């Protein structure tokens, strides 16, 4: 979490504080950097980021897709099937498909995106995704009970998002 370069920078700029006490000065200097984000992106199958510092994260949620920058207002959201885009410090964007899950943004700028399943979109197979979609659609039309129908519709939603993500 502590970037050595940043820490040394902070130490030199806060030398006066350090004379008073070591520990509080660290806290002050850490808060001084507004672009710190404690970002975790994990699926049940794989971990993509663990307490990493990134520039921006775009997530799809049921209340609409939104971007998260450091110091975002704390909130909770439910992930929608779709693509999470992570802009790293050096500007590279990484796209990860998520099936469902949660987004937590805490007061201290720590962000957790937890998904049931997550895969980088390079790994997605467009043909397989389309196949999945047609299967899910036929399941949905054949479903007899309410629960089966709802489950099939969720499968359709995920498959649609998969197809869209694989086409990107």
């Amino acid at each position, binding site marked *: 979490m502590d970037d050595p370069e940043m820490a040394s920078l902070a130490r030199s700029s806060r030398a006066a504080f350090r004379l008073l006490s070591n520990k509080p000065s660290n806290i002050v200097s850490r808060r001084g950097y507004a672009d710190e984000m404690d970002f*975790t992106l994990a699926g049940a199958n*794989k971990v993509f980021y663990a307490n990493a510092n990134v520039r921006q994260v775009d997530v799809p949620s049921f209340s609409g897709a939104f971007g998260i920058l450091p110091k975002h207002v*704390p909130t*909770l*959201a439910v992930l929608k099937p779709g693509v999470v885009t992570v802009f790293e410090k050096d500007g590279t964007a990484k796209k990860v498909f998520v099936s469902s*899950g*949660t987004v937590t943004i*805490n007061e201290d700028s720590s962000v957790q995106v*937890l998904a049931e399943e997550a895969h980088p979109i390079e790994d997605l197979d467009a043909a397989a995704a389309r196949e999945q979609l047609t299967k899910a659609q036929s399941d949905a039309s054949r479903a007899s009970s309410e629960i089966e129908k709802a489950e099939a519709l969720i499968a359709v939603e995920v498959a649609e998002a998969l197809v869209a993500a694989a086409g990107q």
Partner: protein
Amino acid sequence: MLGRTAGIVAVQAANNGQQVRGMATLKTISLRLKSVKNIQKITQSMKMVSAAKYARAERDLKAARPIGEGSKTFYEKAEVQEVGEKPEKLIVALTSDRGLCGAVHTSIARQIRNELCESPDNIKVICVGDKSRAILQRLFSKNISVVANEVGRKPPTFLDASKIAREITKQNFSSGKIVYNKFKSVVSYNTSELPLFSQGAISAAPKLSVYDSLDQDVIQSYVEFSMASLLFYAMKEGACSEQSSRMTAMDNASKNAAEMIDKLTLTFNRTRQAVITRELIEIISGAAALE
């Protein structure tokens, strides 16, 4: 008088019996030796199997850790506390169906049993895995509300965790916890607890107001999902501890069997030698008597 002679005769007969049994012991020892050797083969291959399973479980656990930690952070950051005047407690015992893995299941059951012994009222237990049920049902069958089995043969999946989470949301409780084994290293694990909160407790959390734009739907979905991910994480920890513990247990069993085999072989050889010597003595003394 007569009784006493009868007693002596009986003793002599017993002595004879033992001498006759000297021949038979050779047979029994060799049988024992064979069976111990077979047991050792079994425990050795069980150790191999669980070593392979353990390697996989540990890899899975590494991937599952952030998901568990992440779900836990929110509860800590939002300072969620238990609510409700009538304390309805819920305990989830995470074990599996399979034994021969040291004290993994017993330590979970023991922890819950201690709690139930203190105050058996208003505590409901959800047993995941047959082992916890088998231990708890004798004394606390009233407290067990849900039992899940077919756990432990395959690595736990998110679907398994979701099924358990669904059963938990059906229960009415004010506070709850998951009792599971936290994996430390191949040779050790800690029986620990993870808190479970009902939706009511989260809605009443003192710091929830700092979170923006929340509605009941979001909270409900959030709580359900994070419960499933917590369970998933705890199941992965449990599975990893179980496999590592089975590996150690089977390793110890193989070592003990090897020790037994050594001792039995020694006894077998000694007995065989004794039998040969005795037969020689019999022949020689027979020949000497004829002269």
